[in-house]
């Protein structure tokens, strides 16, 4: 992750952020138990948005949108601290859809692409003043060897030879590309190697995000040229000019996924009214700040304990880094939760504001008092069909971790 100064519409090219969950193997990442397409979208997009760049429009592409009847866009904008007046396009799509969305995007558009099934990953791009992609070809063809239906059922009829011949080869021909692409997002490693120019990068995902992982690889190696994105037999291609684009990666070394036991016990109850009251503070990580004396409280409160003012507060963004004040790991089964899990009281950097949250991204019981880390959006719980998003503590890779089994 580069520490470049403010990027945005003044920049040429695009700023790309990439995120891989810390679980799985180098062959493919899997989601943490508290992640979904939305939390991964936020992880990737924060890499390009946190620097303060202006965003005029958001396109969120995934085949695993958490909610199909609305409810994804508000947490996405809130967690990214973007205005809730922005247009957000929620799009179901894979690698070609993302390439299409990128090449047609106006400056300052944020395109976020997420794969929430293994191999999992997410990437986001903020388009600069000059879009570095230009259309090079397309073939909308159908060879649905894998299907996923609206009722959730999926079917597979894998025939790699058929896909190679009647899918990839035929679509590449139909798109009438001038040459072999430098990289082919969405294709299996074998197909990508067979149909790309020499030196094509290996990509960590196969779906929507793979297009941006492909562009990121080209930026990192300063290569410009033809890029193809394929999903089964559907193909899009574009010419990419790498100069002027930057990449910020949040891709930690993968670790073996922790086996957690989910205990039966029905859904965790939810009060939607309470959810709604807490939403902006919890998802946007904002304290209530007293307009009279400046005291910050999370959750926000009616009566200020600093000066006694009633109902005189506004929301103020809290730092999304902090230090563990105390912690415990729960080992016993808890109905509807996955044990073991670690809780921590975390003090936000530069404030005296603390909050209780889950510890994420490391095995349970490994974080020590004093550990420093980031506060990241996670799906804290599923509650009667509602993903309950909030912030969790992700220790820095260098943070003091204890040996397994000791919180103290």
């Amino acid at each position: 992750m580069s520490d470049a100064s403010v990027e945005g519409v003044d920049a040429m090219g695009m700023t790309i952020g990439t995120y891989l969950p810390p679980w799985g193997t180098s062959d493919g990442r899997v989601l943490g138990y508290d992640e979904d397409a939305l939390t991964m979208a936020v992880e990737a997009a924060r890499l390009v948005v946190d620097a303060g760049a202006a965003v005029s429009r958001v396109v969120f592409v995934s085949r695993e949108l958490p909610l199909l009847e609305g409810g994804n866009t508000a947490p996405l904008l809130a967690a990214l601290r973007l205005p809730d007046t922005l247009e957000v396009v929620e799009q179901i799509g894979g690698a070609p859809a993302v390439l299409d969305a990128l090449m047609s995007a106006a400056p300052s558009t944020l395109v976020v692409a997420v794969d929430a099934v293994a191999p999992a990953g997410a990437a986001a791009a903020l388009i600069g003043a000059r879009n570095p992609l230009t259309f090079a070809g397309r073939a909308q063809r159908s060879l649905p060897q894998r299907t996923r239906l609206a009722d959730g059922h999926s079917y597979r009829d894998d025939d790699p030879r058929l896909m190679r011949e009647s899918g990839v080869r035929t679509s590449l021909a139909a798109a009438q590309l001038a040459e072999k692409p430098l990289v082919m997002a969405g294709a299996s490693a074998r197909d990508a190697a067979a149909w790309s120019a020499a030196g094509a990068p290996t990509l960590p995902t196969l779906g929507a995000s793979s297009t941006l992982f492909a562009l990121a690889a080209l930026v990192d190696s300063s290569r410009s040229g033809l890029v193809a994105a394929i999903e089964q037999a559907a193909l899009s291609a574009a010419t990419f000019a790498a100069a002027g684009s930057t990449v910020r990666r949040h891709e930690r070394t993968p670790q073996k996924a922790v086996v957690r036991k989910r205990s039966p016990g029905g859904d965790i109850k939810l009060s939607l009214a309470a959810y709604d009251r807490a939403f902006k503070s919890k998802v946007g990580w904002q304290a209530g700040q007293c307009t009279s004396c400046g005291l910050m409280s999370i959750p926000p409160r009616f009566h200020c304990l600093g000066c006694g003012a009633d109902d005189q507060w506004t929301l103020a963004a809290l730092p999304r880094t902090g230090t563990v004040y105390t912690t415990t790991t729960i080992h016993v089964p808890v109905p509807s939760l996955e044990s073991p899990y670690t809780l921590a009281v975390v003090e936000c950097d530069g404030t005296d504001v603390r909050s209780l949250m889950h510890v994420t991204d490391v095995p349970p019981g490994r974080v020590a008092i004093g550990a420093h880390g980031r506060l990241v959006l996670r799906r804290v719980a599923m509650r009667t069909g509602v993903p309950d998003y909030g912030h969790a503590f992700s220790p820095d890779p260098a943070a003091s971790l204890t040996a397994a089994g000791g919180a103290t």
Partner: protein
Amino acid sequence: MRRVAIVGAGMTSFGEHFSRGIKELIPMALGEALASVDKGMDRRDIGAAWLGEVGTTDGFGAGILADSCGLLDIPVTRTENACATGQDIIRQAIYAIASGYVDVVAAVGADKVRDTSSSSTFWDWMAQTRDMAWDFPLGLLAPANFALHASRYLHEAPATREHMAMIAVKNHFHGVKNPKAQLRNEITVEQVLKAPLVAEPFGMFDCTPQSDGAATVLLVAEEHVARYTDRPVWVLGFGLGIDRVMHQHKRDMTSFTCTVKAAKAAYAMAGLGPRDIDFAEVHDCFTAVELISYEDLGFAERFCAHKLVEARDHYVGGRIPINPSGGLKSKGHPPGATGVAQCVEIFEQLRGQSHNQIDGARVGLAHNIGGPTAASGITILGKSRP
């Protein structure tokens, strides 16, 4: 303000009363308390009653007490103040008597934890006791509540998990002698340390069992005491302390602020200090809670509670015996009954009739802490009229 004394006290055994419901346990405890009154007491003498009940087993608690005990013509109120409920109903009974409105009050604590499944009790209760948006979905179980304090305490103080284990060992040792106790077996430090983890740093043997039970004390205004007994136990002081609800708002988690507040009030009212306390029943829902409470109650200097443990000062026969009844750890913990049962033990100790008698005991202190470590109740009882 009138002085108040306890003239009778009784309790059911604590344990898994699968064959008895709350409607049997409550009258059992009241009946035993009435039977303990030296010169006898007719239940029609009772002018008001409080039920301390944290859960709502079988429904409407005040009505259940009135109905099951035949106390249908007096005011009855159910009070819930988390695990400080027991001391809190005694406090309310004292208010009622001292103010002059009532002469005799029955303070009955009861809970039926094992009418819920052992695997879901904490969770079922949690749904009613946590902030629905912020805390509940995190799975902040009761043991985790206290474990967050214990982790920080062990981080700052020289105490270790071994010191915590020694508290469990001591309370089991005391409880063996208590016929009303739930777990009447001795355990070793090694057993405690090797037990399966519940919420670090608590293993299973750092935790109280889940219990059913009821307990009653009968409180009387000073001018009526002689009608009932010549050896009453007097209320010397009491206090109720409240702290911030959410753990993130407690600045120093090496101490229970609510206990410090309750102790300050109770000591001030009694005109006594920690050194005047001969023995205490201290809320040991988890071992470290008893350890930290030694400091909050003034029995040990800050971060020196482990020294009291190492010197075995907390055993019967030691400088300040703690939990001669076996404590919550051995005796059991039906939350509403717990605090009342502590006062049953103190009543018996001060009258020289305990199963685990402390020689020369004249002043005893009962302590509860509960909820998200946000409520503490303390009662100080004495042999001599204040």
